[in-house]
């Protein structure tokens, strides 16, 4: 319709959106890039390879990878159960899943403190067994697990709903057991959503801040993740360190999510081409 001939109104709206997004999103990103390299590349490199920075990145990576591993298993499992099984209380379970999206990360960390901290609900048991969760890495792991819980499940549910059940029935009829039918027929259909869910979880886990601050305390060298390192650097006015770590963290998250995005789109294209061929 009016796609080719644009009036003054259309151009005003386009310009408005470009200016808005430019100020709101693009300008801050450029400010960060400029800030990290403002002194010299050497300063950037030096702060990048400092022990505190590397330690914090390593801790973030360890926590994030473990979280992704657990979430991949339980996320797929829960999605499967919610789609394929019917039982009383299922809709309650379904509503529980989005709660981590709505909670403030500080509140998440605090809830874990109420469970595992001194005077906490589980503290007597943990103390007797000499297990430390609050102000230690296990607590930070649990906090990250909590905040990233919905991603995998929400990615997997639509795929499981849309699975082609004819193929499963055919496989079963031909004598395949459930295990074979899962790996040969079901999993290939879920692969791209699985990878996408993992990437979102990884990005979220790597960038978690509020919850790990409250439960972990951010002790340098012990419970300091990359985000806590940035926070401490800002408070101590070590600006270059803060900017360098920020740029690294931001670039890492954006890269992971966009890689997963392009993978998802490629799969979609492949599937479309496949279905055209079948129709022909």
């Amino acid at each position, binding site marked *: 319709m009016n796609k080719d001939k644009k009036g003054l*109104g259309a151009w005003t709206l*386009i310009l408005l*959106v470009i200016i808005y997004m430019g100020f709101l999103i693009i300008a801050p990103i450029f400010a960060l890039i400029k800030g990290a390299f403002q002194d010299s590349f050497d300063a950037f490199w030096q702060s990048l390879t400092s022990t505190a920075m590397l330690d914090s990145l390593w801790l973030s990576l360890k926590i994030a990878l473990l979280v992704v591993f657990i979430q991949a298993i339980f996320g797929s499992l829960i999605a499967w159960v919610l789609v394929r099984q019917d039982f009383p209380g299922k809709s309650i379970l379904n509503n529980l899943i989005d709660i981590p999206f709505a*909670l403030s990360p500080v509140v998440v960390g605090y809830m874990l403190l109420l469970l595992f901290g001194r005077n906490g609900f589980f503290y007597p048991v943990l103390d007797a067994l000499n297990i430390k969760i609050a102000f230690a890495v296990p607590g930070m792991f649990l906090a990250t697990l909590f905040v990233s819980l919905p991603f995998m499940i929400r990615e997997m549910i639509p795929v499981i709903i849309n699975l082609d059940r004819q193929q499963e029935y055919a496989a079963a009829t031909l004598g395949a057991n459930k295990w074979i039918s899962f790996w040969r027929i079901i999993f290939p259909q879920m692969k791209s959503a699985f990878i996408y869910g993992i990437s979102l979880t990884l990005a979220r886990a790597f960038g978690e801040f*509020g919850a790990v601050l409250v439960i972990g305390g951010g002790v340098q060298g012990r419970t300091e993740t990359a985000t806590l390192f940035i926070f401490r650097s800002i408070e101590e006015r070590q600006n270059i360190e803060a900017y360098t770590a920020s740029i690294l963290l931001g670039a890492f998250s954006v890269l992971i999510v966009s890689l997963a995005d392009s993978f998802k789109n490629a799969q979609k294209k492949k599937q479309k081409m496949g279905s055209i061929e079948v129709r022909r």
Partner: protein
Amino acid sequence: MEHSLVQEKQKTGFSEWMLRLPSILYLVMMIVIPLIVIIQDGFREGISGLVHQITLPIAWHAILLTLWTSALMTIINALMGLVTAYVLVRYDFPGKRILNAIIDLPLSIPTLVTGVMLVMLYGPQQALGSFLNESLGLQIIFAPPGIVLALLFISFPFVVRTVQPVLEDLDRSQEDAANTLGANSWTTFRKVVLPALILPTLSGGLLSFSRAVGEFGAVVIVAGNIPLKTQTAAVYVLGAVESENRLGASAVSLLLIAMSLFVLMTANIIEKRWGAHQ
């Protein structure tokens, strides 16, 4: 779809329970138990104790600041999100694909990094920040405008991405009819397009509100932590935890949880309603 297949009666065997039980246990341990413990802790001294903690001057100020900055963000985000979605769906212009890709960036950038970026741009030592401060008297960092900007950044995708698919699926023949009958483009938009987009915009706006109320990482960097001035509710909870004010932390946490969940549920109900219309 294949209703006969999907609804086929399944009896619950051993393998179903092997999948079901761990799922339920995982969700109960991860979500239900922590929620029960914080609710029990917040009501330790009854409702009056809870209300007392919330209405203490510093806590109350933090809550009000959180509410009005989130509300202002929601209004701006709803308006600009609607305009952005409209422009992206209906117009073609150079750079459109880049713009469309940028919209999702706030979802993957850690919010703490967002805070750092805004300080880099608007901080008192930065060119733009000091210019705004000196020539317009507008302080952004360590002031409420910074909070609103940070919230706008992190929640920008919510309205755009809720409205966009609805606008793409909208039947164009009604608009064509309106145009043929002599309506100008503004009238057509107001009478034909807008009514279909109001519920999605509202739902996206509420989603961003529920996200903003609990935001911490971006806000703590941008606003600082000045009680009675720039301290938001989430930052107040952190302070209460650090000073071992347990009842205060639990009470304000519970209020935050209740507000977010209520708004999120409202958004879900609205979403179901427009889903039913289609």
